[in-house]
């Protein structure tokens, strides 16, 4: 309880800039005079006097215009589709797969427009788990930069012309290479086979060479499994069954393998109220989302991954021939891991993130020793994702560059010019290939080097089927008629194979083909309960998936020991290339929602950067603090001749001697038309341009650093770093919205304390002193102190409430994107975020904690204590992720200060915001203890500064707006509404059915999105509701309870499954003497 939590080094050190910025929630560094005297203003077309003239005119014009009722056109359907009711959403079950993420989803459409995606909690192997990229993908549908039809050499052509040219080209070619991402669609595979036969390929002549190539490869894992099990498989992992989880460099909650499924499984076992809680050890170099949730986190260099596994194996008396040297800190955590693993044999899981075969062989060996195969790891249910054939791809790339390539090349779902380390040379060489075709939806890096573009539909426009794991089959159905003259890639393949003809926008080709494949599949249709094929297909589409009878291998896969080859070695600086939760491999780099999603760890938006441990930065002479005016130092990282220059970001927990750089940035280096939001913009709108007039991409592409080691791609490489000239401004949400030094925000305990001690030890009530009637000071709970009369929401009518379990929250940011999508939250761009004007209604505060008790008020040696000492502990701090949104306080401080009563309290406990009343005084935001109110500084849907970043400024991008939520204008406050539109809709359902509101009638967007079910919402006044029992739980507390605002949000104490003597001692002490401790704290604030 008495740990000091801090959100950034600025706060820990209390730099002058930080102290200044924490006084001001909405920093307006520039005064009005400064603004008007700005030289730049003279260059703009509107002078100050003109501005005033316009102002006068527009007021008059608005008054005159408002006198006449506007003529609004309304166009009903000619033939209304049966399942569309104007004004009501229609939901479709579908499946998302983009070569990286896989999830069963539900798509919400309004009047035929998909506007929102959430996980399907009823069907599918991902159990409702999604991630930010999946939720944000709906915006990609309305991307005006998408190719609107087939292209030949950069100019438009027709499908007819393209088809005949391509078909002739493919037939006459000697060798055809099809490069795709991992195809998990059985029907697409069948179509590729049909095409191969149609163009005269036989197994003998090998005319068609199909290469599956993923930007981030898992080939090392498959090769290791081939050595151990005789087949290039990836088995299924079940984190819900694992009592001990050891992850060596695998960010399995965010980017590794199938995070959508893993996060849900993991979440099930992170709730201490369940039967048991898993114990999670993470060894990694970058501070990842997964690492930040671990109970124990060891910092290791990428080259030490093998050592960790060998070290643990040694403890199980297995010798590997691999060095077991570890740093003392890492060894201590490895020892703890060994102890836990020994205690949970057969109930543990070990995963390794490296794409190196030897590291994966070590992980397999350890899993075998632990008895994980057959228990937590299912070898029968194989994962079909990530079948990247690195060696084959490398050979092909060499051939192309060497001019020995195929006559025809097809690219589907891949962008090798961007994702290959030698992509540039590959792209140039590609021009020499006789026939090159790209299926990409954009004229991206690869497509611009291809002769033909046959743009595929967006995923929400097309039929597809998937087979993600052995027995799981899924369907994706279209949710909108194709917007452009694009064609399903499946149809295109069939047309080229001569098996179908073009059907235009209403084509049924893909649907018919998939359906007939399914209805004739013996595996699917012989299952129990399949009586009627039409029903079978209809149910499959309705549920989006079916599970085939569990297939067991004819010859069971048995672990066989294999020789462990050379393990990765490194010299100099080790660089770990990682994926960010939002951007991933950069496929959606043009998605402004994802660009503006603060990274879960660094809270930086719109950029990639070099992450380095702050202690090392100080040694290297880099600045470790930054704010809106002061940028970070730039540095140049060089790997094998390739180099990038990026700002150096201080990230506690980064292993010393290593840096991390995110992949997926630097898209559109040559100005390729990959989307409006993919490029850097200027301060007053418009694109920034380099000296030669090119658009400047966001961040830098570090796929250039990927090395080919023994036939697999290595994402952990060695190189060097050199400080470069200049600084770079970074837009982070980290140093804004400080917690004002208060301690009662995050509560944390250990599992031991939680199970063995009573509530007072880890979740004491806040007490204040007051005089009793005899004149004695007595401790009374906060609830007895009040300025106001009780607000009539308790026990009367509804009282909407929410609980957020800090134990389950992994900080992934999905809720934030879901909220943005549901509530039309504007995108404001890097420059505005830098000024602290981001608009997200929900933010996730990431607090670093240190073992060092640094809070002045609770130390005896406060006089002599130096904050600098806390930095040592900050080397590898514990992390708490805390979603922060409007608390809908029943004694809301914002409501009392509003001069125009624009924000008021409803009798259902909601803090309402009437935008039309608001005059923008911002008093409410000043008075909000949680700092969750957002002010519309500009008219984001029309002001030129936001043309490039705000999708609402685009006729097409506007289609994604939720028609049930007002688009706010300039000068008004906004904030989380608890998704009041959904509350109203849920109540209406109950009213129409003449029954009370029940759990499930209402779920806010954040609840929909949460993969770990950390958030519960409902009617607190309903004694049977889930939210009531959750709020009454002994782990529940309210943030800043002592302020007495009576919020409707409860947090639940974070429980770590760790041994922490310091924390235990402190908390026991507090349990005995809680009042005193808190009394001390109060005094100092």
């Amino acid at each position, binding site marked *: 309880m008495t740990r000091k939590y801090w959100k950034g080094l600025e706060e820990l050190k209390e730099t002058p800039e930080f102290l200044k910025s924490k006084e001001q929630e909405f920093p307006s560094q520039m005064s009005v005079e400064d603004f008007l005297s700005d030289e730049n203003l003279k260059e703009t077309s509107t002078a100050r006097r003109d501005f005033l003239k316009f102002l006068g005119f527009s007021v008059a014009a608005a*008054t005159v215009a408002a006198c006449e009722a506007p003529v609004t*056109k309304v166009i*009903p*359907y*000619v033939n209304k589709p049966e399942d569309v009711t104007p*004004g009501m959403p229609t939901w479709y079950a579908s499946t998302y797969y983009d070569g990286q993420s896989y999830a069963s989803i539900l798509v919400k459409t309004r009047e035929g427009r998909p506007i929102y995606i959430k996980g399907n909690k009823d069907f599918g192997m991902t159990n409702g788990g999604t991630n930010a990229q999946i939720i944000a993908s709906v915006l990609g549908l309305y991307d005006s930069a998408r190719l609107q039809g087939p292209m030949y050499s950069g100019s438009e052509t027709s499908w007819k012309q393209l088809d005949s040219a391509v078909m002739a080209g493919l037939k006459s070619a000697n060798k055809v290479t099809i490069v795709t991402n991992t195809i998990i669609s059985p029907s697409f595979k069948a179509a590729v086979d049909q095409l191969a036969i149609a163009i005269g390929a036989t197994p003998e002549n090998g005319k068609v060479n199909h290469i599956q190539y993923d930007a981030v490869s898992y080939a090392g894992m498959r090769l290791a499994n081939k050595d151990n099990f005789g087949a290039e498989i990836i088995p299924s992992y079940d984190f819900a069954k694992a009592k001990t989880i050891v992850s060596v460099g695998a960010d399995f909650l965010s980017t590794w393998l199938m995070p959508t499924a893993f996060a849900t499984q993991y979440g099930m076992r992170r709730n201490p109220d369940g039967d048991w809680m898993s114990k999670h050890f993470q060894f990694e170099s970058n501070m990842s989302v997964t690492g930040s949730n671990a109970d124990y986190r060891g910092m290791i260099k990428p080259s030490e991954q093998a050592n960790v596994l060998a070290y643990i194996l040694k403890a199980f008396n297995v010798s590997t021939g691999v060095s077991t040297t570890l740093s003392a800190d890492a060894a201590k955590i490895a020892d703890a891991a060994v102890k836990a693993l020994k205690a949970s044999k057969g109930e543990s899981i070990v995963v390794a993130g490296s794409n190196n075969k030897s590291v994966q062989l070590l992980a397999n060996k350890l899993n075998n020793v632990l008895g994980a195969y057959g228990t937590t790891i299912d070898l029968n249910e194989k994962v079909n994702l990530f079948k990247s054939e690195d060696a084959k791809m490398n050979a092909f790339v060499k051939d192309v560059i060497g001019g020995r390539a195929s006559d025809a090349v097809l690219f589907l779902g891949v962008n090798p010019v961007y994702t290959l380390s030698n992509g540039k040379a590959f792209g140039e060489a590609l021009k020499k290939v006789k026939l090159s075709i790209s299926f990409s939806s954009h004229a991206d890096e690869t497509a611009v080097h291809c002769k033909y573009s046959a743009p595929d539909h967006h995923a929400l426009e097309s039929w597809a089927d998937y087979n993600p794991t052995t027995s799981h089959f899924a369907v994706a159905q279209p949710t909108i008629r194709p917007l452009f003259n694009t064609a399903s890639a499946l149809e295109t393949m069939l047309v080229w194979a001569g098996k179908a003809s073009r059907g235009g926008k209403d084509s049924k080709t893909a649907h018919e083909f998939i359906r007939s494949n399914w209805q004739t599949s013996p595996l699917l249709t012989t299952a129990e309960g399949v009586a009627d094929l039409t029903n079978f297909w209809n149910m499959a589409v309705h549920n989006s998936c079916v599970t085939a009878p569990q297939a067991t291998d004819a010859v069971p896969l048995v672990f066989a020991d294999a020789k462990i080859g050379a393990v990765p070695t490194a010299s100099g600086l080790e660089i770990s290339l990682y994926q960010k939760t939002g951007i991933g491999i950069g496929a959606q780099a043009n998605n402004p929602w994802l660009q503006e999603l603060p990274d879960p760890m660094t809270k930086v938006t719109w950029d990639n950067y070099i992450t380095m441990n702050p202690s090392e930065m100080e040694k290297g002479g880099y600045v470790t603090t930054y704010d809106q005016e002061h940028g970070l130092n730039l540095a140049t990282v060089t790997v094998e001749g390739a180099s990038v220059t990026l700002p150096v970001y201080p990230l506690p927990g980064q292993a010393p001697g290593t840096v991390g750089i995110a992949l997926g940035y630097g898209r559109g280096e040559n100005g390729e038309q990959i989307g409006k939001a993919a490029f850097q913009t200027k301060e007053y709108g418009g694109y920034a341009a380099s000296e030669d007039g090119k658009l400047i991409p966001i961040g830098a592409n570090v796929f250039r650093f990927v090395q080919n080691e023994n036939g697999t791609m290595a994402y952990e490489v060695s190189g060097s770093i050199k400080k470069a000239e200049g600084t770079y401004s970074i837009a982070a949400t980290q140093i804004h919205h400080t917690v004002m030094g208060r301690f009662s925000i995050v509560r944390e305990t250990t599992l031991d304390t939680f199970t063995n001690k009573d509530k007072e030890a880890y979740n004491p009530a806040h007490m204040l002193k007051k005089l009793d009637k005899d004149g004695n000071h007595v401790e009374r709970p906060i609830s007895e102190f009040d300025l106001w009369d009780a607000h009539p929401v*308790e026990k009367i009518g509804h009282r909407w409430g929410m609980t957020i379990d800090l134990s389950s929250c992994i900080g992934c940011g999905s809720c934030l994107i879901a909220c943005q999508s549901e509530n039309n939250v504007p995108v404001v761009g890097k420059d505005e975020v830098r000024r602290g004007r981001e608009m997200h209604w929900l933010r996730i505060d990431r607090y670093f904690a240190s073992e060092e008790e640094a809070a002045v008020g609770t130390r005896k040696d406060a006089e002599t204590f130096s904050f600098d000492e806390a930095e040592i502990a900050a080397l590898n701090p514990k992390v708490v992720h805390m979603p922060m949104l409007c608390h809908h306080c029943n004694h809301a401080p914002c409501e009392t200060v509003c001069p125009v009563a624009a924000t008021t309290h409803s009798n259902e406990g909601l803090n*309402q915001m009437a935008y039309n009343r608001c005059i923008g005084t911002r008093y409410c935001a000043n008075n909000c203890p949680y700092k969750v109110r957002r002010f519309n500084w500009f008219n984001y849907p029309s002001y030129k500064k936001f043309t490039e970043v705000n999708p609402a400024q685009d006729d097409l991008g506007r289609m994604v707006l939720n028609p049930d939520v007002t688009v706010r204008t300039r000068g008004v406050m906004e904030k989380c509404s608890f998704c009041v539109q959904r509350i109203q809709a849920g109540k209406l359902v109950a009213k129409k059915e003449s029954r009370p*509101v029940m759990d499930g009638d209402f779920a806010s967007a954040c609840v929909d999105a949460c993969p770990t079910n950390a958030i519960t919402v409902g009617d607190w006044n309903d004694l049977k509701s889930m939210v009531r029992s959750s709020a009454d739980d002994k782990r529940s507390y309210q943030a800043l309870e002592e302020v007495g605002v009576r919020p409707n949000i409860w947090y639940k104490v974070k429980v770590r499954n760790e041994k922490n003597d310091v924390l235990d001692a402190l908390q026991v002490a507090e349990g005995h003497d809680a009042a005193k401790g808190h009394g001390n704290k109060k005094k100092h604030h």
Partner: protein
Amino acid sequence: MFRNLKNWCYGTLALVFLAGSFTSHAQGEALFKAKCSSCHQPHKNGTGPKLFKVRQKWADGGAKEGSIYQWVNNWQAAAASDSYAQSVSTWSPTAMSAFPELKKEDINAIMDWVDAQPEPGAAAADGAAPADGMTPADGAAAEEEGFGWIWIILGVIFFTIILAVGGVRRQLNIASSDANGEDVKEGMTYGEEFKTWAWKYRLYVGLGSLVIVISIIVSLFLSLYQIGVIEDYQPSQPIAFPHAIHTGVNGIDCKYCHSSVTKSKSAGIPSVNVCMNCHKQVNGRTPAQQEQIAKVYDAAGWDPSGAGKYIGKVKPIIWNKVHVLPDHVYFNHSQHVVVGGVDCKQCHGDMTKQVETVKVQPVSELNKIEGNIPLTKPTMTMGWCIECHSKKEISLGALDTKKDGYYDEIHRRLLQNKKAKALYGQYLEDGIVSVSELGGWECAKCHY
């Protein structure tokens, strides 16, 4: 439209008189409407063939005597026994219903009535369509615009008269001063003269100015209150749709066309396929009607020439929205119609009498609707909503009968709470629960 209605009335009256001359006609008409009219028309093929002089047709075609009556009772039996009936059965794939209950005299009554029906073209030949394309709404707008100009012209005339009179007076003054031998104040301009005059009568001028300024301010404020008030708003429409005929004369329920009113926030403008449910057969009696209905056919891509097929491309009808809410207001029809039990006419007026295109009914009209709470604020303004929400009672009947309903649960919680009396006492005193007392006045009920 009024003129059309008149024609309608004449036509109907004529028919009534004609029909009245034969008692059986009345019976025939009733039977036709009850049994036949959903598929048959006198002069037009529909789902079934036209029935005008059908007995003659069968006789001419060589049908057996009485075969037609057997056909009506059970067409299959007739088709089996008579070759002409057999040929008739192939007219359409849609089978005719059997009417065993109709006696021969009933059938004859029907046929007599049908045969007495005049050809629609003949009856409607004198039904002149409005000569110009201008709808009443257009006319009203033009008229209003004209008024504006009249005021301006009048103003200019008055101003000129004042100047002229002033000039004459001045000249007279100068002349009289001259005549009296006084010093003529040459060079005194109009302005100076006015100043002198104003100073002389400063009390009156001051008071007068004050009155003028105050009245300008007041009228400005009053006119500001009118911004966004769209009472009486009656935009022109691409099709002169008469609600009076559809819901008044024909008695079609509002919800038949505005079907999403019970499901969705929007009542829905019927899609053209809903129009075609009836208009496939009903193509209008007068040229004016036919002209309007032809627009529906055009939109639906229906060939009205008798082929009875959808041919051409569909073309959506672009209506002008009448009831327009600003974007920041959320209004849900189903909440009001299903949960609140509000009848359509309570807000939209009596559409059975709406002969012209739809307009926003002024509140004075709405107050005449039976059962409506008298309101004072203009229709479609927030004041209007608020006023109704404060007066409208939540039906307590629902609370009594369904003990597990939504409002029962809310009521129960209220009763169980000891504090409730103190907090809600003021609401409970009058014994009624109004919408506003349950939170119907709260911002986030409509604004989010």
